[in-house]
């Protein structure tokens, strides 16, 4: 049947189509879009205004060390002083001492919180500038290529300050306090940088002095006191500062119990080493401190492990059993001072190992069995301080 005029649908003329009613939802959505566009424009403008032309956008991580200003560091503008920037440092705890004495120990001061200035009221010194503060991100800005080593030991923060030595015509002492998360990590970094020629400090068991400085670990802090020169007054001031800081920082040897049991006599300080697990390739030797001793002209490696008593005994027994393998010879020695002891020889090396009250220790890989026994005996008798 042919289409009739009545049946045809009139063609739709788009150009004649005008919307006269816009639903509220649509109006609202449209307004929202316009506002969003305006907002985006504003953000782009703002970002562009603050754009750092030296931002290497592909390496954002590399810029962490300059992403924030370092507190206390003077800007690269000549003579700009902290006061000009409105930075005010208030005294917190301070210890008054004379140059010759070391003053009363302050009440156990808490480790410096971020931003707490390094203050010392010590006769003969004057701060040269503000305290500088660095964290893990900004440490690179202070010690540059050394930073990765510190970060490897979970470095937390650094505060440092220079002090002029009054009356010396320009001598000064730099004080650096590196805070780590644990005393063990602070020890680890200290040991890594240890100067084998350093002289032991009587006020810091983990410490030594060099020709121009004092370096020690106190709690979870690795302290460096560096003199600008070797004038007597400068070095004496550096030493006083070291004493003051050693007293002010809280002592904390958590995780370092075995370290305390390494005697100081005959110790080669550069040989002190900490192994968290698998010390000497033995599964049962954990959190071990070892060092080499000069004893009667012989070099004797000695180690100590502190554990729960039954764990220490189990380790001692396991070591004894291992020593008997592969042709090794074991000689049980009589108990001494409450300690059980065995002596063993493997491949021409001797070991004399004791266990007492949760402490496992002894001489290992020694060339001389008699010396090894003598050392252990004297150690157990408390004759090697």
């Amino acid at each position: 049947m042919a289409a009739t005029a009545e049946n045809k649908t009139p063609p739709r003329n788009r150009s004649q189509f005008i919307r006269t009613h816009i639903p509220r939802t649509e109006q609202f959505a449209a307004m929202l879009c316009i506002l969003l566009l305006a907002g985006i424009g504003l953000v782009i403008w703002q970002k562009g205004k603050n754009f750092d032309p030296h931002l290497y956008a592909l390496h954002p991580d590399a810029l962490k060390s300059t992403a924030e200003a370092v507190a206390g560091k003077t800007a690269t503008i000549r003579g700009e002083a902290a006061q000009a920037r409105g930075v005010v440092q208030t005294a917190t705890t301070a210890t008054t001492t004379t140059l010759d004495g070391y003053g009363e120990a302050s009440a156990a001061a808490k480790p410096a919180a971020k931003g707490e200035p390094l203050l010392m009221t010590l006769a003969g010194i004057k701060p040269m500038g503000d305290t500088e503060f660095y964290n893990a991100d900004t440490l690179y800005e202070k010690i540059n290529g050394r930073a990765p080593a510190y970060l490897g030991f979970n470095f937390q923060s650094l505060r440092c300050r220079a002090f002029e030595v009054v009356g010396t015509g320009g001598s000064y002492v730099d004080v650096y306090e590196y805070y780590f998360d644990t005393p063990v990590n602070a020890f680890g970094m200290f040991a890594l940088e240890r100067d084998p020629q350093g002289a032991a400090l009587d006020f810091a068991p983990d410490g030594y002095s060099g020709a121009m400085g004092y370096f020690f670990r106190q709690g979870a802090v690795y302290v460096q006191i560096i003199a600008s020169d070797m004038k007597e007054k400068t070095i004496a001031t550096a030493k006083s500062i070291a004493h003051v800081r050693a007293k002010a920082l809280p002592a904390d040897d958590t995780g370092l119990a075995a370290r305390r049991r390494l005697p100081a006599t005959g110790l080669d300080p550069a040989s002190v080493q900490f192994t968290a697990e698998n010390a000497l390739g033995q599964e049962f030797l954990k959190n071990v401190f070892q060092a080499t001793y000069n004893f009667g002209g012989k070099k004797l490696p000695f180690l100590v492990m502190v554990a729960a008593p039954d764990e220490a005994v189990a380790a001692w027994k396991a070591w004894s059993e291992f020593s008997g393998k592969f042709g090794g010879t074991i000689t049980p020695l009589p108990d001494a001072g409450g300690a059980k002891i065995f002596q063993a020889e493997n491949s021409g090396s001797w070991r004399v190992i004791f266990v007492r009250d949760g402490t496992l220790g002894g001489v290992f890989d020694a060339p001389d069995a008699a010396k090894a026994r003598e050392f252990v005996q004297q150690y157990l008798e408390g004759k090697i301080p």
Partner: protein
Amino acid sequence: MAFAGTSAALARVAAPQPAAEKPAPAPSSTGPLPTRKLGKSGRAVSMLNMGGMMAAMSPQYLDTAWAMGIRYFDTADCYIGGKSEKIVGEWLAKYPERRKELFLTSKDHPKHGPKQLLEMIDRRLEACGTEYLDAFYIHGIGPKGYGEDSLNWPKSDEFKRVADQLKSSGKVKMVGFSCHDGRLNDYLAAAAEGGFVDIIMLQYRPFFKKGDAFDQALSACHDKGIALVAMKTMRNTKDLPARLPEFDKLGLTTHQAVLHAVWSDPRISSICNMIDNVVMMETSTAAARSYKKALTTAHRELLQQTILASNRHMFCPGCPACDSFGAGSALALKDISRAVTYYEQDGDLSARELYQSLPALDRDASGVDLAALRERCDYHVDYASLVQRAERYFA
């Protein structure tokens, strides 16, 4: 005096007995480990060799390894800050007669081209205290460290000339390279094409698909008589249950089963293990002695599934399954995974430097569908978690 009695007791024991004080003769060992041949060289070496990177490395530790039958030590210029080679040297000085029975390898980094090996060999020999190395490797070859040109080195005339010169000088018996790079297959293919490389140390996991690109590259090298030494085989096994009933029936711990799975591939001559303690040494050497035949496919699959199930945050084992992804994206999944592995599994703090040495593009996961990648991955590695952890540890 408190300890007089003790002193007297100790003194009695210490009364001069010359015979007792003299060291006993070198310990009798349980005999050398079973051996496999190294490619066309025909040289027989221990199926298990000991890497020189672990903290326990010392002359006494090498004594123990020797006593347990290991006759193959692997070291390198940079292991333990350069101390590893010196320890080997100390041990060889103590037992010079053992040198001919030992297969000793070391490595160096000729960043300016293979010909640098000609000057580096003398330093390695001096450090190891020996007159020759049984194998000398280019250490950890890869385009990032050595440049894109290095992909051609295994078939280049220059490297061939250097290898010939090293061998004719008597300072080296075999020349090759070690590789754990994402482009391992390319290096293997180049070596097969060149035909002159004697030995390759490669990252190896026994769970690849038969016939895939890695399998083919291995076969190509094997057919050319290139010796293949497996390394980094123990990744992702830290959280495995120590024993599984199926492997108990075979008398194997799970760790030993992994070693057996690797030895099941006859193309692999030896496994290089970083043996952290004596117990691991005992287990690994026992595995070598007990190996008689290949694990069944069912056992290998069980092992693979166990590894998958045990590790929620699976590390990328470096299999070639996502090579096609690798071609389209700069994200260095394998390197990131390696850094996290070293940090979490080995406590290796230098993993931070490894991660930070990667260009930022290679560390940037934005725009990469890590969830989809996980689905596609044979091991369902949780890449999102890996990348996140890497940022947290190292960035």
